[in-house]
């Protein structure tokens, strides 16, 4: 009985959790200049529930990839901690992390070694972590190539003999071969044509149900995010400024930046003109962030208070918003 209770889904810890996670890089500009701190990610608190798709959105340089690298255990946070299945990620061995969470990156051209065959590329994680016999490995490669829709005849081909979509399938097979439960996708379809993107998005959906996967999904395409995500984290200049269920965020965005982002989406409707975006153009410098709310120089609703004081993240249980107006 006891066992049953503890394995009910609500009682399981989130697949991934960030507690006050931050990452600062020390940057040296010029030969004699002193190193300056660049806070790429600051005070992030969020949870990804099992089986969910969390989308991370925000403009270039806001810290999405830095956060993703930390979720993968590839980069150490300078503050806070990341919990994988409820355990601090830095208490887990690299091999165990690799069996739980795997990446798929943006560029299917540069992320595959051009001198290795498709089979060698896909089974590399198994070799690195010394998993399985030669026969097991070959079988696993076959299984995952089938799952991602790569024809068997390609096992001995090289990446340059594959189309962009096929290469991204190879990257997905390589991630899945460790049989992880969590996949961190950093702009997995940004380099692809829309017809190829559709295949990859459909594949990611199918794999999710078949293999019971959890995704952290970084994308700048908000239409794709709306299509895939269960929850959405909006970042601005390293900070999490809004977080909530995807349906809520899309129907009722609260932070002025989230609203501007959603207003900027160009749906293919020729009866609509271009949206008027009233954001200020003072793009932020991460080395000397603005006072108060980081967003205030561009915010159409900023008040004196936004100038002076950093807003506190408001948590209503369902939604996190970091803005003085909420």
């Amino acid at each position, binding site marked *: 009985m006891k066992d049953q209770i503890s394995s009910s889904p609500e009682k399981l810890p989130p697949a991934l959790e960030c507690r006050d996670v931050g990452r600062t890089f020390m940057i040296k500009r010029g030969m004699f200049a002193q190193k300056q701190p660049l806070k790429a990610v600051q005070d992030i608190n969020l949870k990804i529930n099992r089986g969910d798709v969390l989308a991370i959105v925000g403009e270039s340089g806001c810290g999405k990839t830095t956060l993703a690298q930390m979720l993968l255990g590839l980069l150490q946070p300078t503050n806070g901690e990341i919990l994988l299945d409820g355990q601090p990620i830095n208490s887990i061995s690299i091999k165990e992390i690799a069996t739980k969470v795997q990446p798929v990156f943006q560029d299917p051209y540069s992320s595959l070694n051009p001198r290795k065959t498709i089979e060698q590329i896909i089974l590399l994680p198994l070799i690195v972590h010394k998993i399985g016999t030669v026969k097991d490995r070959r079988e696993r490669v076959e299984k995952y190539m089938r799952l991602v829709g790569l024809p068997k005849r390609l096992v001995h081909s090289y990446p340059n003999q594959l189309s*962009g979509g096929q290469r991204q399938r190879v990257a997905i097979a390589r991630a899945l071969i460790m049989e992880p439960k969590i996949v961190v996708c950093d702009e997995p379809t940004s380099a692809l044509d*829309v017809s190829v993107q*559709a295949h990859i998005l459909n594949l990611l959906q199918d794999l999710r149900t078949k293999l019971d996967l959890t995704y952290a999904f970084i994308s700048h395409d908000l*239409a794709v995010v709306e299509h895939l995500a269960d929850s959405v984290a909006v970042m601005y200049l390293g900070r999490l400024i809004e977080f909530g269920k995807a349906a809520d965020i899309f129907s009722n965005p609260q932070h002025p930046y989230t609203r501007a982002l959603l207003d900027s989406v160009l749906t*293919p409707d*020729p009866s609509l003109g271009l949206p008027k*975006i009233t954001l200020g153009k003072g793009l932020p410098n991460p080395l000397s962030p603005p006072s108060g709310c980081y967003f205030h120089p561009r915010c159409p609703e900023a008040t004196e208070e936004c100038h002076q004081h950093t807003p506190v993240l408001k948590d209503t249980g369902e939604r996190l918003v970091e803005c003085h107006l909420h």
Partner: protein
Amino acid sequence: MTVPVVLNVENLSVEITVPAGTLHAVSNLSLKVHQGETLCIVGESGCGKSITSLAIMNLLPSKAKLTADTMSLEGRDLLDIRESEFASLRGDRIGMIFQDPMTSLNPVFRIGEQLEEVYIQHGKGGRKEARERAEFLLEKVGIIAPAERLSQYPHQLSGGLRQRMMIAMTLMCDPAMIIADEPTTALDVTMQAQTLNLLRSLQKECNTGLVLITHDLGIVARMADRVMVMYAGRSVETGTAVEIFEKPTHPYTQGLINCIPVPGRTKPGSHLGSIRGIVPALVGDIEGCMFRNRCDHVSEECYSGEIGLNEISEGRAYRCLLSPEESLRNFKLKGAA
């Protein structure tokens, strides 16, 4: 009252010599742009969008060979002029905006010098007028403190600012025609919307013809007066933005429209439409329809001969053997009620 044609291209073909043979990058492409009109060229990677724009600008790589029946700018024949004459048109009567502004901005000169140089070089006036025009345009493109910005070097500006500088530079001589090749692809979505707004308002104000090249159907729908869908070096469908999105007639256009997720239309989590297979190689001679290997309505006739453009009305055409009625019957907008 007819609006004058600024750019007229008929039967443009570009062949590139590659180790494997002859690559047909662009085949028999025709287009017309009127004053103040926006023509969007849309299509997937490798379909020949950039080569088309480089051909019009006379900037093709040397191994590329151009043929055309007509190519004219404001009535002036572009096929029959020397490169030196062409050079004096570029930047003056016709300007180009690239995806990466650093391909046009010189890193070692201040922004101001580069903008002014375009103006002076084309004999529009002296240094003083050039400076005034540059400051005027910078303000137009929404740059605060223009004088200060003009004394900066390209690398000191953000991507968004550089793209605005590029737009300002293209407008220095008040050209009749602008070709913009993926001008906002490198920008964040908020910056993209702002930059497109700007490009559009300046274009309308100056009555400039605009060819806007993009792979983003959202940009096409919101910006285009007319649309050309390209596939494998060919124009496969043309029409107004409304015609293309409401009654797409070529199976490829239909496939494209149905494979993108659209907030409010496609159901979250549902399967997106897709086009099977991949684009064909363009090397060697190919008969029949270029899209046949990916088309759900392919028949035996699609494999031979030249598939001509089927003209439905003036400016509205598609390259497919199906009748418009047949083709539209096949199309159901994904997610629509």
